[in-house]
């Protein structure tokens, strides 16, 4: 797991909040989408409770404003449609009693060393 283009600006977002705090669920995705639209290379790393936001059975049921506005799926697909990559680590899957199969397609699993390597090589790390 590495950044693919050394000439591109690289942004790594870190998201730690999960489905119990839906007001925090959308912002990392839309900042990441905007970054991708600026031709940055972008990844979002979900740790602690973050991986719960990627559950297949959840993304149509929650949104940042509850029943008003768009569901979480909209924000996720806006980001991934622009090439944003989504990462999780195994310990935080365990913390939330999840397996990779519970999550939407396309999520990649990395470990602590890979995360630190991505962070050290990024131009900025933005943590939520």
């Amino acid at each position, binding site marked *: 797991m590495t950044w693919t283009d050394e000439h591109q600006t690289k942004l790594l977002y870190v998201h730690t909040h999960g489905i119990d705090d839906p007001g925090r669920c959308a912002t990392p995705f*839309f*900042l990441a*989408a*905007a970054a991708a*639209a*600026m*031709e*940055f290379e972008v990844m979002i790393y979900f740790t602690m409770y973050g991986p719960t936001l990627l559950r297949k059975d959840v993304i149509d049921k929650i949104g940042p404003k509850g029943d008003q506005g768009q569901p979480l799926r909209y924000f996720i697909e*806006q980001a991934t449609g*622009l090439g944003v990559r989504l990462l999780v680590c195994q310990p935080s899957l365990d913390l939330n009693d999840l397996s990779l199969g519970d999550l939407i397609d396309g999520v990649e699993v990395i470990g602590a060393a890979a995360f630190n390597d991505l962070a050290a090589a990024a131009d900025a790390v933005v943590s939520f």
Partner: protein
Amino acid sequence: MSEPAAPAADQVLDCVGAACPLPVLKTARAIKELVPGQVLEILATDPGVEPDMRAWTSRTGNELVSIYKQDGVFHVLIRRVG
């Protein structure tokens, strides 16, 4: 903010009523449909559109030709480069 003395747009993108980050996302998509040298005009009401479009053009290398506000609507003219 410059005066409305801009070249005619080759394409108009209506983002009136669309909130951040939609104008940026739609602009990124729309500019790819132009050939280099053509001008995209974005109509937007999001209050952050001016700093956003300045940042977006400076990062993507496209040219911000002008931005002005008329009757509550921002008109952003961007020329596709490269």
